[in-house]
């Protein structure tokens, strides 16, 4: 007769369950686990290199080929020709002042500096000179060349005197006109 009573069943289960999971792994389980983890770390690094290398190469090429600010062509605004504002032309009746400059005691006719009241000719070089009034030009001339300016003034006064004498006939004490 089979002994399958309660006691047998209990013993069967007790023994069976206590031994159910009591299998020992193969020797060296911990070493195999650590080796596998190390290999996984290595594989992870390799994966990153495969991803990072092309990205880095693209960035490097972009950095080399990207135009730098200094190489950029100047904007048209900075290089634009700024025309001098238009100045009304000298009226026809306006006299041309001729200022005689005597330099090194040379005759007046040999040395002349002519300045007109008209606008300066447009320069072909950049930047073009902005308009300055005749007075500012004269002021700059006097500031830069004081001695010469004094000489010019003296010559001008003498010229004015001569012009006045020539224009108004003089009378001799005898009442005779003289040329």
């Amino acid at each position, binding site marked *: 007769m*089979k002994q399958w009573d309660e006691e*047998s069943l209990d013993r069967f289960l007790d023994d*069976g369950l*206590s*031994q159910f*999971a009591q299998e020992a792994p*193969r020797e060296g*389980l911990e070493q*195999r686990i650590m080796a*596998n983890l190390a290999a996984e770390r290595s594989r992870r690094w390799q994966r990153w290199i495969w991803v990072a290398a092309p990205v880095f190469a693209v960035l490097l090429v972009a950095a080399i080929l990207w135009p730098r600010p200094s190489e950029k062509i100047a904007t048209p605004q900075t290089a634009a020709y700024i025309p001098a504002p238009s100045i009304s032309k000298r009226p026809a009746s306006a006299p041309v002042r001729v200022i005689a400059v005597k330099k090194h005691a040379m005759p007046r006719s040999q040395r002349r500096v002519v300045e007109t009241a008209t606008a300066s000719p447009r320069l072909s070089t950049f930047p073009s000179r902005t308009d300055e009034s005749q007075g500012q030009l004269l002021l700059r001339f006097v500031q830069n060349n004081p001695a010469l300016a004094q000489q010019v003034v003296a010559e001008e006064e003498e010229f004015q005197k001569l012009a006045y004498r020539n224009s108004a006939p003089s009378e001799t004490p005898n009442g005779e006109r003289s040329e």
Partner: protein
Amino acid sequence: MAWQESVLEFARTATSVTIEDVVHEHARTVFRVAYSVVRNHADAEDIVQETFLRATRHGRLEEIENHRAWLVKIAWRLALDRVKRAPEEPIDGIASALKSSEEPLDKALSDRQRSRLLHQLIATLPADLREVIVLSTVQEMSSVDIAQALGIPEGSVRNRALRARQLLKQKLSVWLERKK
């Protein structure tokens, strides 16, 4: 001084836990848990390797309070996934061995045959009872560890283990009666 003690306590708890420490302490337990489900060495070791791989990906091991329960939880899920795909092992030879033997039940079968029989019977249990009874067969697992691994209260672990054992006994008895 109290502040010195608190500094020392902080230094002790803040010590980083290495994966090497965790492997040496819990590798065999994890293996047994895996084996209790898949019932063969090769699959059990695969599951152990995968369990520790996932553990390293987690990163900060010092944040885990109970490493054993945490690792068992991972291994348990991996083992269940593996078992779903595995075919059932036939136990017809066990019935014939019992018929031909005059020994008492607990001595009629070899350890291997007994394990196979129990494995088949446990597989027929409801899932909530099955997981508790299987984990309780791993000696290193206390009821607290099982409760944390399964995410259930400790009292539920003891109740379910008791119900599982009773049900196993009934099933074994029925199976033996059928095989007479």
